[in-house]
């Protein structure tokens, strides 16, 4: 094969930080902003998305030889929609309050560009092993992203983390952070922080290379 295909391990590691879906590729922003007012709904969302991503990636990688180029996006969306229906019904059956709280954002996983992009980039080209590793890696990256945003928002906005009170209740809280504008502000600052860290590391690497040369 002329083109180098990433191995399953590379796919797995790439998904977590180097190609983090939220911080690096700016995909899947809708749930990142909408359900991160607290840790619990954010983690439920990550679970549902990971389930859909893993199943959809496996299925598309198994049927990748049957896909016709002009119909592939439709096939991806229909596969994803099927698994989202399963996830939505399961949530409604076993965790009804959480399903009520997440509301339309569970069905909106269907149009989460992160999943479609993984189907397109990885699983429609590589075998099930690489697709599975990729899905798990990207899900972990998504977990990291949602956890970071939700941590900032819940601690600042509510003084708690996972529902456990961290800041004494008499302390004033920044209500703004659990309202919609807080989501934009938190994600914007975290994106800036991530870029700053990346730039600093890059500068350090080039400095040490210059030093050794």
């Amino acid at each position, binding site marked *: 094969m002329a083109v180098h295909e990433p191995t399953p391990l590379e796919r797995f590691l790439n998904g977590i930080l180097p190609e983090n879906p939220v911080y690096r590729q700016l995909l899947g922003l809708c749930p990142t902003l909408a359900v991160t007012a607290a840790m619990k709904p954010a983690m439920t969302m990550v679970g549902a998305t990971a389930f859909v991503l893993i199943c959809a990636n496996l299925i598309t990688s198994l049927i990748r030889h049957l896909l016709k180029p002009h119909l592939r996006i439709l096939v991806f969306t229909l596969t994803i929609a099927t698994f989202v229906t399963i996830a939505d019904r399961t949530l409604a059956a076993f965790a009804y309050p959480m399903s009520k709280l997440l509301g339309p954002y569970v069905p909106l996983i269907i149009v989460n560009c992160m999943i479609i992009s993984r189907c397109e980039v990885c699983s429609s080209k590589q075998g099930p092993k690489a697709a599975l590793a990729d899905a798990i890696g990207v899900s972990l990256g998504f977990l990291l992203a949602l956890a970071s945003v939700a941590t900032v928002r819940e601690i600042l906005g509510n003084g708690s983390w996972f529902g456990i009170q961290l800041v004494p209740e008499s302390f004033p809280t920044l209500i703004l952070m659990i309202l*919609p*504008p807080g989501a*934009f502000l938190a994600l*914007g600052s975290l994106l800036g922080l991530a*870029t700053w860290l990346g730039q600093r590391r890059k500068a350090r690497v080039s400095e040490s290379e210059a030093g050794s040369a």
Partner: protein
Amino acid sequence: MELFADLLLIAIGAALVNNFVLTYFVGLCPFLGVSRRLDTAFGMGCAVTFVISVAALLSWTMTEFVLRPGAPLPNWVWSSLNPAAEAGQVDLSVLSYIVYIFVIASSVQLVEMYVRKFFPPLYKSFGVFLPLITTNCAILFACLEIMKHVVARDWGLAESLTLAIFGGVGFTIAIVLMAGIREELELCEVPESLRGAAITMIVAGILALAFMGFSGIGANVEKLLNP
């Protein structure tokens, strides 16, 4: 008159108070991706408004007659196949997400074909944005909201279309405002690590903060209409 009052409330709610982008965070991809210039942003807003209305019309029809619990069509088929069955037993709502995504994809395709045939200059100016609308979550979100109200039996076609059209208008307002701000932002000295997506997010946060001021309007109009 009562219907008019309801429609006005839904319109204000969808366009300003609960703006799709700034309160529900749907349609963020084009909001960040296509908001660099004012004219393309406005074109994108119009395209989304158009597709959202077509998709809402189709999905309302599907929900009302096929998908909701107790919908007429599948029940008629079932009872003519099986005369012993009780009336109103068939519930196809499990299929709704798959049907909606199909409806959205095909209406985007239809709009694309129609525009290409009859308005070639407009088609050229939309370019690649038209097919991308399929994965715009604002449209699926509107379909889901309509489904919620149709299943609860409190919305007809007029309410559903109002929500869709004014949701689209709200999206257009948000993306045009954003594009105007970003055009000015080009001339500003932004810290290096905040450049690009990060500063756009922060600006969107301030815009969302400004839009929170509209929540008073919704409450006041409601008081005015139902004294």
